[in-house]
């Protein structure tokens, strides 16, 4: 089966994000970049499915030439080839889903796996937009029942299971107050939640091999997509700081404050 996986370039989740004094964006200096963690989980899941069912994992990223780093990362993990949509400047989710729709129509994958959201703009939209644009089924927030580090991990049923006839995928999703299971006809869209799997590290041979794997270059113009944003970020600001709290000496002092000052107990 052919699986298309996204690989967005985002700020390292461990970095400290600061807003520029004029509110026009975030301070770029000193930031490190990574593949969006949810997308990395998508790459891992794609590789596991292909290991079981044969086929290939094609990874796609949109951005300037720097996004090739993230594509190479996915290729080093084991993805077979990459598609790079070369574009600089702001993009909204309508445009991103529009570009991905064209890539999907060109590649004709059986399954598209995306991170449920990217950790920069936290919109959680592209997978769902893409599913609607394509008229495909969607299973968002694919997750596992057990903890990633638990004993059960090795033996349990994976969250994504392709049907014996290769025509459906069964997905366990994390929703409010429980787990929902859906069965989507293929081709379908799946978005990943945090606990779907633990992505592998790229091996040294993997990193060497990735250097010679092909990256195809496309552009919004070539794909015929108008990417004028319909979402404008007018201003960014730091969240309001909480007023400095105090340290209390002991539990009776704490209870006194909670009862008489905060009035919450």
């Amino acid at each position: 089966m052919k699986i298309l996986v996204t690989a967005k370039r985002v700020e390292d989740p461990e970095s400290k994000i600061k807003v520029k004094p004029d509110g026009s964006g975030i301070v770029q200096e000193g930031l490190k970049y990574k593949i969006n963690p949810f997308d990395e989980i998508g790459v891992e899941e794609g590789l596991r499915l292909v290991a079981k069912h044969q086929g290939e994992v094609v990874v796609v990223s949109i951005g300037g030439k720097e996004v090739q780093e993230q594509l190479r990362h996915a290729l080093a993990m084991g993805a077979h080839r990459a598609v790079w949509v070369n574009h600089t400047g702001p993009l909204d989710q309508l445009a991103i889903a529009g570009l991905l729709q064209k890539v999907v129509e060109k590649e004709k994958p059986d399954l598209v796996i995306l991170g449920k959201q990217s950790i920069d703009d936290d919109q959680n939209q592209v997978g769902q937009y893409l599913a609607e644009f394509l008229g495909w089924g969607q299973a968002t927030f694919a997750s596992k029942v057990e903890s990633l580090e638990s004993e059960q991990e090795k033996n349990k049923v994976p969250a994504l299971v392709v049907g014996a006839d290769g025509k459906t995928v069964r997905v366990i999703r994390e929703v409010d107050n429980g787990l929902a299971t859906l069965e989507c006809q293929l081709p379908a869209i799946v978005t990943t939640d945090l606990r779907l799997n633990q992505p592998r590290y790229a091996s040294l041979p993997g990193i060497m091999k990735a250097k010679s794997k092909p990256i195809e270059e496309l552009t919004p113009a070539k794909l015929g997509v108008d990417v004028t944003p319909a979402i404008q970020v007018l201003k960014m600001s730091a969240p309001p700081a909480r007023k400095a709290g105090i340290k209390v000496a002991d539990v009776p002092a704490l209870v006194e404050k909670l009862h008489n000052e905060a009035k919450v107990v």
Partner: protein
Amino acid sequence: MPIVLIVAEQQPDGNLRKATLNAIGAGKQLAEKAGAELHIALVGKDPAKVADELKGYGAKAVHVGAAPELEHYLAETYAPALAALAQELKADYVGMASTAQGKDLMPRLAARLRAAMATDVMGFNGSGADITFNRPMWAGNVFAEVKLTTPVKVFSLRATEFPAAQGGQGAAEVKAFTPKVEASKTKFVDFKEVKSARPELTEARVVVSGGRGTKGDFKEIEALADDLGAAVGASRAVCDAGWVPNDLQVGQTGKVVAPQLYIAAGISGAIQHLAGMKSSKTIVAINKDPEAPIFQVADYGIVADLFKVLPELRSELAKLK
């Protein structure tokens, strides 16, 4: 007059999801700023009971679409049904609480309406036709003011940022409509509820959370939570270690909570955890490490071992009663 359409949510047990009331509260704020009418939409197999409950919240109308095909929630069937209604009403704004269903459904609905969408909206600015949305980015480290330039504007709402709408405000007209039903390429298989006697994390007045400092022993956390009628939460580290189920996770990647009182025991306060609880009214931190970042957001901190503090806290609180 412009129209704000708020989508109500029915839980699998048929009851109204409480976050819907916060979404209606938000819808009222937006309607006031935009000079718009507030409408509520609800679709499902058997939405009548909940529709009746929704009458008293000051909306102009409650639109109810019942169809047997809508028995189990699926984005693929709910999006066309609601999009057709939004188009018929000529709704200018369509919003819903950022629940799991809201997050799954609203982007698909927006795509169908060719609308841009803002996720996890925390507030509205401007007036008349010139409305902008406040929303968090980078795990809540940045607040952004965004403008949507498509004719229809779709959004999901961070429920904890809006007061729940109050009932008893007249009786809205309940209008039945025949929902547009489309075939779905996805089949609902099952839903396994994680049952708990404690209140839902996102709805609780008090949350007691444990982190790595518990070393997986949640007995004291649970005992305090039960004394206070509180929900139990946890940090991501604790969930990933398999010590507690993942649906207890508070944080950017888990649940976002804003209770009256949040007690963090043995939680260091990673950025992503803080993003999930910073809006709590009063925060108490209990940690052995005086340098733990959690103390920077806590109103009251105690530098001590949680296994000493929690039992003592329980007996001191008992004295208040």
